């Protein structure tokens, strides 16, 4: 594994990733001003999810690293969502 060549991400790529993240932040603040009821929270979470994915894929190098890290990350996410689902399933039928 140590023979693997390290991928050097260019400054331009990091710059573009940062610009995307800032745009998504602006979108997230702007969307708050719209009246959409419960949809507001959903949209805010979708945007946050997109930002998190960008950070994980590019800044945290999941795109360039061993795929094992990606698999683990997805597994952790699935566990979290399952716990969330089970908890709310419980609360909604009380």
């Amino acid at each position, binding site marked *: *594994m*140590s023979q693997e060549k*390290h991928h*050097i*991400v*260019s*400054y331009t790529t*990091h*710059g573009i*990733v*940062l610009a995307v*993240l*800032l745009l998504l*932040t602006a979108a*997230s*603040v702007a969307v*708050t001003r719209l*009246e*959409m009821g419960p949809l*507001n*929270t959903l949209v*805010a*979470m979708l*945007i*946050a999810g997109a*930002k*998190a994915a960008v*950070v*994980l894929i*590019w*800044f*945290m190098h999941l795109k360039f*690293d*061993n795929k*094992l*890290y990606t698999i*683990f*990350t997805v597994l*952790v996410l699935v*566990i*979290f969502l399952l*716990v*969330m689902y089970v*908890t*709310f399933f419980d*609360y909604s039928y009380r």
Partner: protein
Amino acid sequence: MENHTEHTSHVHRDDEGDKMGMWLFIFTELLLFGMLFLIYAVYRYKNPVAFQLGGNELDVFMGTFNTVILLISSATVAMSISAIQKGNKKQALALLSVTLFIAVVFLVNKYFEWGAKIEYGLYPGGDALLELGHGTILFFGLYYVMSGIHALHILIGIGLFIYVITQIRKEKIHSTDYVWLENTGLYWHLVDLIWIFLFPLFYLIH
């Protein structure tokens, strides 16, 4: 293995193992904050109006400003890894100094933000907070615990950056041995990742 003479003393290194360890730690952190988000979700589901009232008390500008600078610091630490890989020590140090500076600014902002609320009595057990409803008390409890644990992580990050900067100065971290910097970067992105969710859930409640 030792069938050829080594010029330098051989130190055992396992960068991939180090990184794997860091990722495992990150997963435990994600689950730690994940459970806090779960508590938040349940309480918000039960007290939607109170959470909205609580959210209105928070300063959207301050929250957005901290989000923006934290994202920039994530980019600079990612760039510092590229710099060290290219063997550009000066640039790496400059980028890390910017990151360190932003981390300190983030905490200073938090100090003013919390300071104003505490002065007003909006803290767990504070007069102004106790006058508000049960749900808003829950909201502020979660706000202080979650952004407090996050701020603690920023503080630890500051310590890590100071360490990494001195190690680069001493040439202990360089273009062929930089796993410490990589892991510090991963840690910092985790701190950013958590803030990405804290920001809309507390500051942008509608």
